[in-house]
């Protein structure tokens, strides 16, 4: 799964670069507009190490932001799973807030908190929080009647058991959503760094943009792609391992 993610990205990246090079050749554009392969390779030699460090910096914020959003999504999702007044209120609020573009709120966060680690973390977690929350609320609010019936009628149902049953029955969905939210968290962090920050790959891309240095941006995109592919691959592998450990397949699928 991990290697599949990486080579899928490499194919997409190679296609993108080839497309731009085709435009460059077709329209006889200068290296200033679209850099040629020698310039890209030269820039890679110079910037690969510092940009890798920047991407790792961004990734650390991404991972922390994603962990925060997973924790918050589960806490609110579990609280909002009931069809009580408070549960309905949480669901309606979540649906309404998620419709609002979080990036648009970024300037407020930067004005109030300034540049730095906390605003990046907040934006990263907020961007992946709402899609996660909607999935968790959807899963937690849907009863698994065939399993829960016994515990309800015999008075054994506790909220912990209810959550466990619903999480277990939707393990595939949950692991997919969590792995998918990694991209959102990374995008959120980069956007935050791009708008106003003093570290991270988004900040470096902003500098490259001001220098109109597309080769640097290609290198940054390459590293972002590789790192996020590896991170997502690790999350998916972890998800698979959890599924294999916690559940067990039927004797074997015939049909």
């Amino acid at each position, binding site marked *: 799964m991990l290697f599949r993610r990486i080579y899928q990205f490499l194919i997409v990246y190679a296609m993108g670069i080839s497309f731009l090079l085709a435009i460059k050749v077709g329209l006889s554009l200068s290296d200033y507009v679209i850099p040629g392969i020698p310039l890209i390779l030269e820039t890679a030699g110079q910037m690969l190490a510092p940009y890798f460090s920047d991407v790792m910096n961004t990734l650390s914020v991404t991972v922390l932001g994603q962990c925060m959003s997973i924790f918050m999504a589960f806490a609110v999702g579990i609280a909002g799973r009931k069809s009580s007044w408070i549960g309905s209120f949480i669901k309606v609020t979540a649906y309404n807030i998620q419709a609002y573009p979080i990036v648009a709120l970024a300037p407020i966060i930067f004005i109030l908190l300034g540049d730095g680690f906390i605003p990046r973390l907040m934006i990263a977690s907020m961007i992946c929080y709402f899609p996660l929350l909607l999935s968790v609320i959807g899963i937690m609010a849907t009863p698994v009647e065939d*399993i829960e*019936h016994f515990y309800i009628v015999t008075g054994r149902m506790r909220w912990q058991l209810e959550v466990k049953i619903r999480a277990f029955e939707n393990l595939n969905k949950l692991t997919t959503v969590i792995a998918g939210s990694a991209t959102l968290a990374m995008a959120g962090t980069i956007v935050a760094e791009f708008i106003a920050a003093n570290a991270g790959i988004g900040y470096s891309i902003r500098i490259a943009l001001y220098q109109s240095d597309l080769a640097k941006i290609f290198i940054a995109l390459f590293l972002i792609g590789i790192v996020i592919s590896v991170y997502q691959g690790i999350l998916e592998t972890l998800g698979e391992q959890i599924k294999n450990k*916690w559940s*067990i*397949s039927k004797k074997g699928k015939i049909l």
Partner: protein
Amino acid sequence: MHLECHNLNFTYPGSDVAVINNLSFSMTKPGFNAVFGPSGVGKTSLAKIIAKKDADIDGRITNQDIAVILYSYNLERLPGWSSTGTHLNKVTPPGKTELRERLIHIFELNDVVHSRFSQLSMGQQNRMNLIRYLLQDFDLLVMDESLANVDEKLRETIILAIKELFADKMFLYISHNLMEVSKFCRQILVFGKPSENKGSLMVQGQDYKQGYRLNKQSLDITMLEIMNAF
């Protein structure tokens, strides 16, 4: 022990067709009773109404000496994160360990208690589920096709064992097996086909117990009575 239903009517919200129409019946004494009829006549709806004491119904259901009613059905599942044996242990009330082991033996599930629920065959799943209910404190247990997918011989063994082990409890058995309900149930509530405007009828079953001797003639009469009722 007494379960009585007076002029019960039930229509699902949003539907114009009544599932249960002016139903009245009475079941007395502990033992195995049945609800029988073709699919879609309201057997499960009735069972759920009886089990859900606070159901909003048109009519009256009264009972005597029936405090706890449990409803089990054949599509129920046990959670899949640990073995069925572990789940059974967790839901066994104190003092019923011996009964649990006995039921596992009678239900022929000794070999699968270490397996997860999803690894069991459908018949094993239904048997495992039924054991959970039998271990609980109840006065009336509704068994809605709870022994579906179990072979006939074992089903007979299980029913006879339940009748012996839980002689002071009332059971409401929903099944599509004419022979089975005729043989083992005492009172059989037969639902007629609504398309033929047939109401419900209470038929006396043979109520066979452990070590019974088959009386073919009276069994045939019971079966004919049931067939004529729907």
